[in-house]
């Protein structure tokens, strides 16, 4: 977890030093490809986990309810907090 953050900060330092190199402004595309690879690997680990696959129907529904509820609860609170504390009246964005 902290390795991951450390690597990102190394990237920030490298990016800052090389910020005048124009190719770095197009980093969005390789980032997308790496996200695809990561999602593929996440899928592969779910597909090969018998603990998840075998109990999918019985436990999955309860898990789905919890996941939907907590995600929805968080984004609703996010909307409230954003609306009252962060939304800029006019100005940029």
């Amino acid at each position, binding site marked *: 977890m902290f*390795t*991951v953050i450390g690597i*990102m900060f190394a*990237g920030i330092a490298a990016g800052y030093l090389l910020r005048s190199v124009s190719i770095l402004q197009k980093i*969005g595309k390789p980032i997308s490809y790496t996200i695809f690879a990561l999602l593929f690997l*996440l899928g*592969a680990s779910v597909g090969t986990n018998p603990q998840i696959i075998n109990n999918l129907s019985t436990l999955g529904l309860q898990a789905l309810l919890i996941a939907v509820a907590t995600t929805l*609860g968080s984004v609703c609170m996010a909307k409230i*907090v954003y609306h009252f504390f962060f939304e800029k009246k006019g100005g940029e964005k």
Partner: protein
Amino acid sequence: MIGSIIVVGFFILGCLLGWAGLLPDWIMDADLSMYVLYALMFQVGLSIGSDKKLKDILRSIRPKLLLVPLATISGSLLFAALISLVISRWSVFDCLALGSGFAYYSLSSILITQLKEPSLGIQIASELGTIALIANILREIFALLGAPIFLKYFGRLAPICAGGATTMDTTLPIITRYCGNDLVFVSIFHGILVDFSVPFLVSFFCQL
């Protein structure tokens, strides 16, 4: 939208190939996905570091940013309590413990299994642990795939709050991609605080 369909496609392809046993062992190596994540984080770092607006971003960190993790935690717990009315199998505190994983599936599932074993027995405790695992994996998947939808209907903080404890690593790239580089530090700050809350909240609700 098309980008998020492609992402789902890659996830399902991985699921199917893994389930069918068509993937070579080196792909299933847990280290591989870790290195891919490292590569991703380095690229995200590069994009932040080379961003011409980096100084403006750093200047934008304020105490009111504490409201973002608070929104995540309060929203998740409130709705976990509500949904427990539908799930008769488990108590409201069990559901709150499940919801306190905030997508941190590895830690929350292990904690719940261990902490619930004395009171529920090993069989039922590991059932609850498996639900924690699936629910929090699903939440991470929702955060990864739903980011553009949350952004559109719930505002710029919603992809961050949906991501829970993962917004400083696994979901950070997708948040940067959709919300923009200026929210990167909000996302990391949020991820760190929510992450630290997981062991405390999960063990608190397991004892009730």
